[in-house]
């Protein structure tokens, strides 16, 4: 267990540095490329990263093989190579989007954003604490997208961007105090974020948490073509402890538009955790199956990280 008191609840206790909040999972080289591309007008940087995503796979053949394997597992008429190249291209583009490359102010993000099902969020948030359940599919930054259209959403996780200092117009939307870190391999370290998240939900706040990802214990798997998605248990615990309505949120790229779809709430929380898990699994599986069927080229986490 980590005895360093500074490691305790960094976001919640306000000890998080405002900057950098950078993509911890990316190499310094990727970060440097993002910074360079950020000098270009939007969407040139994104387009360049999309191209680099493809080019890099030919130097790093294991990634190309994974993309081809993913593509081969997808049913439908699309050719294996075409889908694999599209997946690689989207991977590169999503890295740039995650870093907000070329997006100088919130208005630029707002202009290229479509939010479907916003009424579900408004209705739920009016009544109290609301859990938005995201997935590592499609472009990231759903909480940021919802913030720029006026929703107060706290992220469970770490906000990521290019590491550059953004303009003053971004600061209200990138405030790390509205993020609760649950990263780390030790459960004691993740607990702080979960505990704060529970409090926030009980106090009527809106929280965004991803169901899948590298951290936390496995709750269940959703079998999908090309590999199963591992669903973690943190959000289920929050849901069980707060009875907050849980709204699945999926996002995809449609041309230049970032589309965020907020689905209707999952069924009400069951008293029995095992039963609740089964109910959630039954409700989420068709949503995820449909997503993979419609946007296999945007499922980089399933193709590369599983």
């Amino acid at each position, binding site marked *: *267990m*980590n*005895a360093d*008191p500074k*490691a*305790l*609840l960094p976001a*919640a*206790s*306000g000890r998080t540095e405002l900057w950098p909040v950078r993509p911890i999972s990316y190499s310094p080289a990727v970060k440097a490329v993002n910074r360079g591309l950020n000098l270009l007008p939007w969407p040139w940087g994104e387009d360049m990263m999309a191209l680099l995503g493809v080019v890099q796979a030919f130097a790093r053949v294991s990634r190309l093989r994974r993309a081809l394997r993913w593509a081969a597992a997808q049913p439908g008429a699309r050719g294996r190579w075409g889908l694999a190249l599209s997946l690689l291209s989207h991977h590169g583009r999503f890295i740039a989007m995650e870093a907000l490359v070329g997006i100088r102010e919130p208005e630029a993000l707002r202009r290229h954003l479509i939010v479907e099902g916003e009424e579900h969020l408004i209705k739920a948030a009016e009544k109290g604490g609301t859990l938005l359940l995201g997935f590592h599919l499609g472009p990231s930054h759903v909480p940021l997208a919802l913030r720029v259209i006026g929703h107060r959403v706290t992220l469970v996780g770490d906000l990521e961007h290019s590491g550059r200092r953004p303009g003053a117009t971004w600061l209200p939307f990138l405030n790390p105090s509205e993020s609760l870190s*649950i990263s780390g391999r*030790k*459960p*004691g*370290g*993740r*607990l*702080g974020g*979960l*505990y*704060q998240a*529970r409090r926030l939900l009980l106090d009527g706040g809106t929280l965004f948490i991803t169901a899948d990802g590298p951290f*936390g*214990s496995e709750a269940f798997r959703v079998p999908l073509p090309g590999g199963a998605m591992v669903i973690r*248990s*943190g959000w*289920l*615990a*929050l849901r069980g*402890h707060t009875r907050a309505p849980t709204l699945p949120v999926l996002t995809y790229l449609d041309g230049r538009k970032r589309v965020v779809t907020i689905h209707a709430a999952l069924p009400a929380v069951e008293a029995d955790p095992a039963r609740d898990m089964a109910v959630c699994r039954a409700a989420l599986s068709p949503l995820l199956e449909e997503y993979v069927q419609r946007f296999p080229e945007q499922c980089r986490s399933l193709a590369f990280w599983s």
Partner: protein
Amino acid sequence: MTGDSTVERVQAIVAGIAGPRRTPSDLGPGTPLWKDGLWLDSSEMLELIVACETEFGVVFDPAHDPIQEALKTVSSLAGVIRSKVKR
């Protein structure tokens, strides 16, 4: 039995969360809650904290309570709870 009712009550809560399969027969105050002990994950630790709040009528303050330290063993958790009950 330890003769310490706080430790015993925490121990009972922990055993209930870990379940019979993961609860060692020699569960005691010094049993680690995570590594080489009960292997509680973060969700289970959340359940533990919430259950302790209910059981002892206390509210943890993550900004001030040493929760990570408290969650080392049954005894360390009981210690933090005792200090909160006294306040």
